[in-house]
């Protein structure tokens, strides 16, 4: 029944935002940001359990923990970047929103570089030496 709570919260917040936007657009923006933060914070608490299970599985199967850490960091960056970009986009600043997304992509790429490096080294190790 938590899903219904979230939907109700979103609907009520939308109505309130529409009412306030007539008078003060600034407050409407802050209210939208607050509602988004609230829902995000509520959901992120649930994700914690899933990630704990994931870590457990990874440690059981003997995957080096650095890989899982990198993947988790990438997921975190993706969530935050998407969230921030959407809030900024709500305020009508499309250019800054796309810059935030761009920065998110760059940081994800930087995080992924060690993994790519390992893959390339593995492939080179598979190739026959000399020739």
């Amino acid at each position, binding site marked *: 029944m938590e899903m219904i709570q979230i939907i109700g919260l979103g609907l009520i917040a939308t109505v309130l935002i529409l009412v306030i936007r007539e008078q*003060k657009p600034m407050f409407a923006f*802050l209210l939208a*940001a607050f509602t988004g933060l609230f829902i995000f914070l509520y959901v*992120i608490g649930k994700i914690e359990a899933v990630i704990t299970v994931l870590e457990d599985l990874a440690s059981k199967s003997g995957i080096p923990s650095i890989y899982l850490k990198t993947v988790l960091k990438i997921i975190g960056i993706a969530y935050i970047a998407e969230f921030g970009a959407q809030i900024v986009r709500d305020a009508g600043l499309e250019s800054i929103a796309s810059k935030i997304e761009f920065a998110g992509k760059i940081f994800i790429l930087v995080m992924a570089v060690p993994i790519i490096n390992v893959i390339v080294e593995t492939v080179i190790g598979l190739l026959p030496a000399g020739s």
Partner: protein
Amino acid sequence: MNIDVSAIFQIAGIGIIIAMIHSVLKQMGKEDMAHWVTVIGFVVVLFMVVRLLNELFQEIKTIFLFQ
């Protein structure tokens, strides 16, 4: 949910009341006073939003293993 849902209604209420006070003060001819009221209300709401944002970032840092 350690932050109550009522915070959303609080923000909406602050917005509506500030808008009301603003228009009343404008009618009385005190333009600068009206603007100060708006700014103060805005700062109060901004403070609430930033506190929640801080909480979200701390949560993400702990969950997604940022050091």
